[in-house]
């Protein structure tokens, strides 16, 4: 049967050429469904990138009542570095904090005139590993047991809100995409079914000369997969064009406010998955159509 693959592909291509309108409808439907899915994926990916970059900057800041002695500081640093959740810990002296604050004030730095570095407390900045971000409260509680640490600051709450938003975006994408993919699947199945009805005489003749069910099904399965593949490529082209013309500008201006400078298109693996997904939709659509039809012809 594998040796006959070129024959099946030829027949599938010929079938598509004989029903150009039906084939175009299938390709278009798969293309639209996957392109919409790709738009969501682009948005989710870029927003996710934003949370990752924010999360990397996110730290627990432990303000110190008094600047510690050298050996004490070293002990603390070693202790905190040993926490499994911690990626890095840095000591920010009063002087350093003063300099940073001055830089942040920019043209208003003269406000600090007459004030010394002693007005600002020294601190420890504890950064967590990205995968252990959810342990922020636990780490903060552990740090809080050290009486030498005064106030503890960390921006977990807004990060959680942002992650909830990301989850919502992702869920909406999956739900809408799932719905569209399902619609594409049904349309491909119906297209193939219409083709099968149009070629009922051919199927009958095939069964009468001894064609096996697989022999009858294979060209239609290949046809479905080819249509899906074309739909996937179309989705890729449309989403890339939309990305260049619309998304990059609109999403860019939205995310620029938050510190992201460039908007990225889907990574190559995702692009491949999109095209392969199209082929899979087409294949499943044909399978759905053929399930009952060929059984009927064989009876």
């Amino acid at each position, binding site marked *: *049967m594998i040796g006959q693959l070129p024959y099946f592909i030829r027949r599938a291509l010929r079938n598509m050429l004989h029903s150009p309108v039906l084939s175009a409808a299938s390709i278009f439907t798969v293309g639209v469904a996957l392109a919409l899915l790709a738009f969501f994926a682009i948005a989710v990916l870029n927003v996710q990138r934003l949370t990752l970059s924010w999360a990397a900057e996110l730290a627990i800041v432990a303000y110190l009542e008094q600047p510690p002695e050298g050996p004490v500081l070293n002990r603390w640093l070693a202790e905190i570095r040993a926490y499994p959740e911690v990626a890095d810990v840095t000591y920010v002296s009063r002087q350093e904090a003063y300099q940073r604050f001055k830089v942040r004030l920019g043209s208003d730095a003269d406000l600090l005139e007459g004030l010394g570095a002693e007005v600002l407390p020294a601190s420890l900045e504890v950064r967590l590993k990205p995968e252990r971000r959810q342990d922020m409260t636990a780490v903060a509680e552990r740090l809080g047991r050290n009486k030498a640490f005064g106030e503890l600051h960390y921006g977990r709450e807004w990060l959680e809100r942002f992650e909830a938003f990301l989850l919502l975006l992702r869920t909406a994408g999956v739900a809408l995409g799932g719905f569209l993919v399902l619609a594409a699947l049904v349309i491909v199945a119906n297209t193939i079914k219409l083709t099968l009805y149009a070629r009922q*005489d051919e199927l009958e003749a*095939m069964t*009468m*000369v*001894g*064609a096996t*069910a697989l*022999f009858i099904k294979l060209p239609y399965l290949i046809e479905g997969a080819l249509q899906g593949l074309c739909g996937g490529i179309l989705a890729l082209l449309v989403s890339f064009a939309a990305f260049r013309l619309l998304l990059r500008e609109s999403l860019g201006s939205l995310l620029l406010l938050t510190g992201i400078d460039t908007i990225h298109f889907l990574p190559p693996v995702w692009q491949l998955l999109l095209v392969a997904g199209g082929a899979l939709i087409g294949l499943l659509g044909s399978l759905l159509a053929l399930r009952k039809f060929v059984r009927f012809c064989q009876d």
Partner: protein
Amino acid sequence: MIQLFNVTKAFQREQSALADITLRVAKGEFVYLTGPSGAGKSTLLKLVCCAERPTRGQILMDGRNITQLGMRHIPFLRRNLGIVFQDFKLLNRRTVFENVAFPLEVQGRRRIEIGKKVYQVLKQVGLEHRLSHHPPQLSGGEQQRVAVARALVVDPLVLLADEPTGNLDPDVTLDIMELFKSANARGTTIVMATHDRGLIRQFPRRVITLEAGRLTGDAQP
């Protein structure tokens, strides 16, 4: 070659299309199945090629009980059969060559072999000059000759023909009968359903008569 034992076929809510048929067709025989419309001729042919299953009884083909044959094995049984229909059942989108090559493609034969075999059979039926035409471009007689070529190209053990000359004029009917005769002379068993008494008189062979699904006659010429 073909044996039927007490075969009955009943469709839902209808009286039996075939009732208690027992008959035997020997290897290399040429048999007419005759009787009025609705007598059960087509049903009997369908049972022999497993397009229908008998309600009761057993059918043996070349010693093998095909009544119990699983769905998966039916295609392989049909590869030993040639089937000719009254309405030809040709594929109009394919050329004459492709129509005849079709059963060999189904069997997965090599392209070179297919080419040679198809040309040879088309020559036999006198259509080698029409191989690139499509069926709608041919006359009724030519289309039936293509259908016969498609049936013969696999060198079938049995050729089943359901009213093959029903739509043809007398001259073309003679051509088709000559093709059947020569296939039979080469050893193919032929079972031909027809209600054309004139044809049976012209080419006398064994005649099995069916009436209202019952076997009412079995006469040698």
